[in-house]
């Protein structure tokens, strides 16, 4: 079915609002879903499609089912918007969530959400999905774009370890430190650059000089700060390592 006209009824089955606001957002000038022939209608009687959001709470279940049955029997498209509607999301096994299937902890794809009670035509995950993601889902339904996702099953034999021995150990310790200084996002990227310097250098003093050089290159004050801290913590780790060796203690067990 490639409808040129898609009147949708928005059905919230207990969502946190995030997805609902994004659905309204696709109507607005930047995204303008009306281009694709989509119109938000006030009653399920007018609708071609349901946009379902939310993990399906027990209280919403009955009205949601009624809304579905109030739709004309053809085409009755169901579009699950958001992670909750796709699979129950973060709320999947709460006591307040309606369930028809058991929520085992080991099944996949994970159960929950809209597919519990309605046949779903398009799943649009995201927490919340970007408006572009919703547009993409609608375009997919209309056959305007190609599907990009596909399931993957890897059984790769080889293992790549970017660093080994001492440096790998240092990197693990520094990861935890840099997270506190400038956060994981920028921190890990910076740590990668820093570790390259570490690999290149032969002594902490040489590393110190290279770090100074790098600080001059970086314009961002926060990254400079992060680099400074990394170097400080690096020296700390090296000291600790030396003192352990000095005490000649054999430590049993492997730290995670």
């Amino acid at each position, binding site marked *: 079915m490639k409808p040129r006209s898609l009147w949708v009824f928005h059905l919230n089955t207990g969502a946190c609002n995030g997805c609902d606001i994004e659905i309204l957002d696709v109507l607005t*000038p*930047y*995204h303008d879903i009306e281009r694709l022939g989509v119109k938000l209608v006030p009653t399920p009687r007018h609708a071609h499609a349901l946009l379902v959001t939310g993990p399906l709470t027990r209280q919403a279940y009955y009205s949601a089912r009624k809304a579905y049955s109030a739709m004309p029997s053809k085409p009755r498209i169901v579009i699950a918007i958001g*992670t909750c509607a*796709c*699979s*129950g*999301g*973060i709320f999947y096994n709460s006591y307040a969530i309606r369930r028809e299937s058991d929520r085992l*902890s*080991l099944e*996949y*794809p*994970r159960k*929950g959400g809209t*597919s519990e009670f309605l046949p779903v035509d*398009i*799943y*649009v*995950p*995201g*927490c919340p*999905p*970007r408006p*572009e*993601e919703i547009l*993409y889902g609608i*375009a*997919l339904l209309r056959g305007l*774009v190609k*599907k*990009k*996702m596909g*399931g*993957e*099953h*890897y*059984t*790769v034999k*080889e*293992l*790549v*370890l*970017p660093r080994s*021995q001492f440096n*790998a*150990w240092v990197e*693990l310790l520094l*990861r935890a430190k840099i*997270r506190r200084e400038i956060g*994981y*996002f920028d921190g*890990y990227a910076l740590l990668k650059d820093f570790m390259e310097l570490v690999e290149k250098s032969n002594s902490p003093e040489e590393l110190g000089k290279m770090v100074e050089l790098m600080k001059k290159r970086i314009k961002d004050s926060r990254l400079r700060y992060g680099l400074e801290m990394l170097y400080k913590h690096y020296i700390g780790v090296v000291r600790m*390592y030396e003192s*352990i*060796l000095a005490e000649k203690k*054999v*430590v049993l067990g*492997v730290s*995670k």
Partner: protein
Amino acid sequence: MTKSYPFEPEEAPPEYRGLPRINPLLCIGCGACTNVCPPNAVIRIDDCSSGTRRIVLDVGRCIRCARCEESCPTGAIRLTREFEAATDDRNDHVEVVEMKLAKCRNCGSFTDYTERQVHKVLSIIPPGILDFERIRDKLPLCSECKRSLTIINASRVGGEWR
């Protein structure tokens, strides 16, 4: 003002937290991500009869918080900038990485960690800190054998293992 998406491709901003992806070359199957994931989108399934571990990521359950990225010790799981995950089949959302579990040196049954974990652990221990050869001998032990080893060690007070 309107963008021409979806008729023209669009990229999410560099800071965007998009779909998570596992790099199977880096994943060691430690399950750190499965422990921190708030919606349990990443799970760990051990099959003790065939000795495999599967790390299963379901994008359709993921809330994109990037805790997995933060906690992954090898940087195997990353949040990409991709966001186009709409599909008509939920199976498209699943990504599985399968690997072998390590065999216990003592009793031959499968342990609760993978060969890759052992490999990783051995390759990152800094020289001199651990008694290298010994650990290499003792490392792949199942929890049963580990427990009995601990008991043996405890009874050998002052022994070499203390």
